[in-house]
């Protein structure tokens, strides 16, 4: 039965594939490429921040106008290429956009969700395979369109990833492209999320009740609902801003705006705050879109490597649902500084504190799961173990930002940058690495090299902290985010050393990604061959062969028990699979 897929022509099997596994791999690879691009932009920006207005070594000459400007060194006569302020703004806006919308969400949801979710549900494929393909093929053009912004006059979008008007309304053409790209990406994620929800609800295997779903599937389900219901308001906002820019409306413009001494000829009467509300109505749930799949992956890895059931599985599930629900009513904590009245600030401060409760429950459950376990320190487990404290730091540093009194001081400083990067970089991205190492054998039938993985982990763990830890101190020293050159201010110059440290951390981090890149490609062809269940895991994806054939399972899986039946007393093995594969496999 497995050989049907081999009859397909190349372009149907690898390019316009409707198989969820191939689409998942396409998403993963594309998202990793975007991750690398976003990371590269960050390196250039960090170089500028550590060594303001110094020529960018090596790659400076390839960046081109208006990102860099040629400057002649008066002493040596050599031409160097210095990052311009506009270039910095473009890179800053695009770094955020790429990382959030083109790298992490597609990796976490499009990549892992697509590959793992139908397998974990015991389904032969997604509910709508062609819609799934359409989702990828709208994501990729949307991403390329956004990158195309760099080639129009004025460069790519340069109003920050939040695109606040009126700055964004009067920005260069790149912003229009950003908005168009955004609308396309939203369409893509909408197609994806409908597919995910239908798959989880309708395509679960026999005996796989909701409370026998692995936590990863739950996390993806909640994430899909967030994408489904939170993205449309941003789409609406994007359409409105597009109208402002293209059709001359003034939804976000109260009128009388003066640009370069010229009053803008608009009807006026709009509200710049409208954008912020619509944007954050999406972007706060988006935070949970970023972290929930990560938490799901970490739960799988921890249960598997502690060889015992997750502690408090139901609490995890209820927390994730509650988290998803609450994330819709906390958005204005991003806007405390807009002149909001105290009553409302108090409301949003309260909901923000409430939403931290389920996050803490999830983290606590995962930490308690470690208790009394004989832990296998595999590479995925190392990343998972590092994830726990890193996510803890990221989460706990968020509390002062959710309290109005302290937010007044910390708002828009590097402290905020440090906070959300700890959640997303050593948090979600570490979870993504754990997931890649964990499910690589399922996708390819081969394991990634263990020692290269350990080197990758150790270096990343050290240097990622070197990148982001200084941000907290810089933020508390009032260094503002999005600043081109912090040495221009006295307080910024005083902590410039921290900025240099962060930059060198970033270069170290880059260096330690090389073992991963090598390992990834090398293992596809030469990694150690493994069987269907190399980690001795219990969930359904490990009942299918590695790599799973078209249609996934050799026989229809029937589920007899919960997802984390490890070390069940009286069993021959220390794991009881939800649906043991047929004996012949």
């Amino acid at each position, binding site marked *: *039965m*497995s*050989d*049907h897929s081999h009859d397909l022509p190349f372009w149907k099997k690898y390019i316009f594939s409707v198989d969820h596994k191939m689409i998942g791999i396409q998403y993963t690879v594309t998202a990793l490429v975007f991750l690398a691009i976003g990371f590269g932009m960050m390196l250039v920006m960090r170089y500028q921040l550590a060594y303001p207005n110094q020529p960018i070594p090596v790659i400076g000459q390839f960046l081109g106008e208006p990102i860099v400007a040629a400057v002649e060194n008066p002493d040596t006569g050599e031409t160097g290429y210095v990052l311009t302020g506009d270039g910095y703004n473009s890179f800053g806006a695009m770094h955020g956009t790429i990382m959030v919308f083109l790298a992490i969400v597609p990796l976490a949801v499009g990549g892992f969700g697509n590959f793992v979710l139908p397998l974990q549900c015991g*389904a*032969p*494929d997604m*509910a*709508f*395979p062609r*819609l799934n393909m359409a989702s990828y093929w709208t994501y990729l053009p949307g991403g390329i369109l956004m990158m195309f912004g760099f080639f129009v006059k004025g460069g790519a979008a340069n109003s920050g990833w939040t695109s606040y008007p009126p700055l964004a309304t009067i920005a260069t053409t790149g912003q229009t492209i950003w908005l168009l790209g955004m609308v396309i990406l939203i369409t893509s994620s*909408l197609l994806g*999320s*409908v*597919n995910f*929800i*239908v798959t989880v*609800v*309708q*395509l679960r295997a026999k005996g796989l009740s909701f409370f026998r779903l692995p936590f990863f599937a739950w996390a993806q389900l909640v994430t899909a609902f967030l994408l*489904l*219901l*939170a*993205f*449309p*308001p941003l*789409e*609406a*906002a994007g*359409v*409105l801003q597009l*109208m402002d820019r293209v*059709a*001359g*409306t*003034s*939804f976000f413009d*109260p*009128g*009388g705006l003066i640009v370069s001494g010229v009053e803008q*000829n*608009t*009807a*006026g*009467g*709009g*509200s710049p705050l*409208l954008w912020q509300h*619509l944007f954050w*109505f999406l972007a706060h749930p988006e935070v949970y879109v970023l972290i929930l799949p990560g938490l799901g992956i970490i739960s799988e890895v921890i249960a598997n490597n502690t060889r015992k059931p997750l502690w408090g599985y139901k609490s995890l599930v209820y927390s994730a649902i509650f988290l998803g629900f609450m994330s819709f009513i906390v958005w204005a904590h991003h806007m405390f500084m807009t002149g909001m009245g105290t009553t409302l600030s108090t409301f949003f401060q309260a909901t923000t504190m409430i939403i931290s409760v389920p996050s803490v429950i999830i983290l606590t459950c995962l930490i308690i799961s470690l208790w009394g376990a004989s832990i296998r320190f595999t590479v995925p487990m190392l990343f998972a173990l590092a994830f726990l404290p890193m996510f803890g730091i990221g989460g706990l540093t968020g509390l002062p930002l959710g309290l109005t009194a302290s937010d007044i001081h910390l708002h828009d400083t590097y402290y905020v940058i440090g906070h959300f990067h700890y959640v997303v970089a050593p948090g979600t991205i570490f979870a993504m690495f754990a997931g890649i190492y964990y499910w690589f054998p399922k996708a390819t039938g081969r394991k990634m090299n263990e020692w290269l993985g350990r080197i990758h982990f150790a270096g990343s763990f050290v240097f990622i902290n070197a990148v982001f830890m200084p941000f907290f101190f810089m933020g508390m020293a009032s260094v503002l985010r999005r600043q081109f050159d912090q040495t221009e201010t006295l307080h910024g110059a005083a902590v410039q050393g921290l900025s240099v440290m962060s930059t060198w951390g970033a270069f170290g981090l880059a260096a330690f990604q090389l073992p991963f890149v090598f390992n990834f490609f090398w293992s596809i062809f030469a990694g150690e061959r493994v069987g269907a269940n190399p980690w001795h895991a219990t969930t359904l994806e490990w009942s299918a062969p590695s790599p799973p054939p*078209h*249609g*996934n*399972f*050799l*026989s*229809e899986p029937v589920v007899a028990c919960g997802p984390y039946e490890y070390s069940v007393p009286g069993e021959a093995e220390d794991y009881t699979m939800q649906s043991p594969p047929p004996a012949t496999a």
Partner: protein
Amino acid sequence: MSAAATEIPYDMEPHPLTRMYNGKFGIWLFLASEIMLFGALFSSYVLLRVGAPEGTWPIIGAPTVLGHEILNVPLAALNTVILISSSVTMLMSWYYLKENKFSRGQFFLLMTVLLSCGFLVVKYFEYNSKLHHYLVEFDAPLVVDGEQVSYSRTYPTAEGERTVHYLHGHITETVKDEDGYVEYYKFAADARKPDHGHAHDDGADHGDSHAGAHPEIELRPSDYRRMSNWGPAGSTFTGIYFTLTGLHGLHIVGGVVVMVYFLLTGGSMWKKLPDKYANRIECTGLYWHFVDLVWIFLFPVLYLL
């Protein structure tokens, strides 16, 4: 290869939990997200309207804040009837397909397509009349032959009160110089509407019937501060009107594309899997009724209130 293993469950038969087949559940989820999309836009509409400075909604100089000061209610009411009818023909199409009467089903699908095209044609005329109606703002009162022809309206802004001198009307002729630049417009101004009472006639074209009230004015580009048609840039109201109805119109166009596809390919699908084809029409219908439902709210909100 065993077909059973790769067949997706609940593709045709309803799932015991949701009592829907996959496609129907999917389309409902899609509609949920559409509710959020239009919800956000409705919300923006309310916010903009509540925040609009007095005298600028729906457009500067309008005697009341009602949308029909500048919109055409009879045409929109006609469109409402057209769209509701198209919803019914859509239902009939599905009904006859379930009855196993393919050609009747296709006939009603064709009716739906025709009705939606009718909707778009009416919309075209509405848009067109807006795009040919102009608002001109001046820094100072416009005086022609010693007589002030512009009106004025004062409203509060961040810098204190602001007085706008304005005219509404149509450009009857554009005169260009030899370099192709506009030298002046011949402009037929609308007669001033009474600031009280209710002008329920067709707001879009009232200018024509009273064009004689003012002589044609010659407007040079240096005379005015801003000139805009009643298109998206005319005022916040026309902006949100065009955005909401435009987005709704795009939904209509999308629906028409899908229905035309089914009209063309339905025959072969029907021969192979008649039930599946009926299901597809049902899903299309659900979407179509939703588009109808959005219009049912758009109509009073934009035109009547």
